[in-house]
């Protein structure tokens, strides 16, 4: 639904995004990357606020810049906290609903429904100027989904939301995705993303570093060294056994907790496949088994920090 072909965008001499080619289809896609990686630039290109310096951006088959045909089916929740401070939440959503081309008869009901959907009914008639960060965030999301867009882009939508609101909003996004809409969410908080989707786009220094399914990306990383912590009563015995394997690079017993053994393997895939047999064959009692590197956070760190 969204397509970028060799897209680059500079701001004068400063690079925003650099030669990005990707395709985003229905469902939730997470756009990840450290600050300054180009996530916001990419969103602005897709939402037709900026034009690419080189390359091509198409949304639903058309160029988005100042194109009403695209905007009819596109929703956007910007990152900036500012909005129409002198309006009430309901007024702002109503105005933007008008501008989205909804008809006057359906607007009041539609606005109330959407505001209810993001859990803002209790404060809808207060001035936005007095809203907290979380309340602004929800009104911003409401205006983005008011016209039931096919493509929805949200820039850091969960920033500043409390856990309750976060669950509600995630629920709303899942609802949209289940109906075949294309939802792109950028975020810093990786554990949130892990709960939301498996499809990611990872940006770094303006380039698209990785894209696809988290598990696929994880197996790519399996080719690189990996730490695994094992808690058992036989740390030393286990260490010597494991060190016999050529794939285990090091084994270290925790200085404080002698039952905790941390090993480093250069072939995690193979290690994970062989370890259960080793345990079962030798009748070892393992009480805890986990890898500090086995989450999106370390995938991210690994890719970004090289």
């Amino acid at each position, binding site marked *: 639904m969204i397509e970028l072909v060799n897209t680059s965008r500079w701001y004068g001499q400063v690079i925003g995004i650099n030669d990005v080619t990707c395709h985003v289809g229905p469902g939730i896609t997470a756009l990840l*990357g*450290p*600050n*300054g990686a180009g996530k916001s630039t990419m969103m602005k290109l897709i939402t037709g606020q900026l034009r690419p310096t080189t390359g091509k951006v198409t949304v639903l088959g058309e160029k988005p810049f100042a194109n009403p045909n695209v905007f009819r089916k596109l929703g956007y929740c910007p990152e900036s906290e500012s909005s129409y401070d002198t309006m009430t939440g309901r007024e702002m959503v109503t105005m933007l609903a008008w501008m989205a081309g909804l008809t006057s008869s359906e607007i009041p009901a539609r606005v109330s429904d959407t505001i209810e959907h993001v859990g803002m009914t209790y404060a809808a008639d207060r001035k936005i100027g007095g809203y*907290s*960060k*979380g*309340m602004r965030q929800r009104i911003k999301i409401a205006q983005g989904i008011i016209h039931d867009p096919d493509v929805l882009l949200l820039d*850091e939508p969960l*920033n*500043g*939301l*409390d*856990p*309750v*609101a*976060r*669950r509600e909003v995630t629920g709303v996004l899942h609802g949209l995705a289940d109906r075949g809409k294309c939802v792109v969410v950028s975020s*810093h*908080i*990786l*554990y949130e993303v*892990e*709960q939301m989707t*498996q499809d990611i786009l990872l940006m770094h220094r303006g380039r698209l570093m990785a894209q696809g399914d988290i*598990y696929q990306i*994880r*197996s790519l990383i399996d080719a690189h060294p990996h730490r695994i912590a094992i808690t*058992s009563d036989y740390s030393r015995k286990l260490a010597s056994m494991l060190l016999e394997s050529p794939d285990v690079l090091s084994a270290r017993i925790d200085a404080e907790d002698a039952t905790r053994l941390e090993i480093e393997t250069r072939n995690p895939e193979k290690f*994970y*496949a062989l*370890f*259960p*047999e080793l*345990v*079962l064959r030798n*009748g*070892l*009692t*393992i*009480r*805890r*088994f*986990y*890898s500090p590197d*086995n989450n999106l*956070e370390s995938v*991210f*760190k690994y890719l*970004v*920090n090289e």
Partner: protein
Amino acid sequence: MAVATISGLTVRYGNKTAVDGLTVEIPEGCVGLLGPNGAGKTTLLKTLLGFLKPTSGSGEVLGYNVATDGLKLRQKIGLMPEIDCHIPGMNAVTFVAYCGEMSGMPAAQALRRAHETLQYCRLGEARYRDLETYSTGMKQKVKLAQALVHGPKLLFLDEPTNGLDPDGRDEMLNLVRDVSHAKGLNVIVSSHLMPDIERTCDSVVVMRSGKMVRQGSITELRALDAVQWSVDLRTPSPQFQAAMEAEGATLITNAGSHYRFEFKKSPTEDIGSLLFAIAIRSNAQIRGFERASRSLEDVFMEAIS
């Protein structure tokens, strides 16, 4: 000993009650202050700083009365506000030294401390640059440095990791952890991100609609009555789940490749062997397992519902 003792504290703005008869004793160490938006956390912090006069009730922080000893209090407290703030036209060193001087430090001492705290907050050569050119992560560090410069005994951190990317967040959390656990400062952290609280705090206070609804150490609050195990597979596997259920385990939650099971019968002695055996049988690959406890998020959701 308690850092702050609050009894029956009520704070109103106009006709809106932000803190409503709050009674709580905040222990020493690193304490997480949790609550949904509008629960009165920020108001509570502002009252403890002596900005707002309580409508009724009393509060004592570090032995000072919050209603009358605002100045003495602020000498001993450092505040890291949630919002972006800086003084235009200053670089980080000047700014932090200036903050030190406002707390009464002689100019030379303030400058010395400014360098010391900025270095501690991992802000290298960038500290000579104008604050307006800083990234979010650097601004957060400067905000922390200015709260530390006058050597406070108590630190208020309002959403310290807001808007930070994973690296920045990691650095900030390590700093908070270090300052509270190795440097002997008392810290109150308010955050919406439960993993942050889990990493930095020892205990939490949960607020809702201006009242305290739960308090305790994180370990206690997270303890589960039942024995549950969480298992992380390489990819989601329905066969594994079926095999586990055949062994008498009940599935509690499943998110992607994360599973959590509860054993109704007494827990097996050698859980590792059991899990590995099932995994081999069902052709799944275990990437990790551990005795589950409740997540702080669950504790929080339960407390405020």
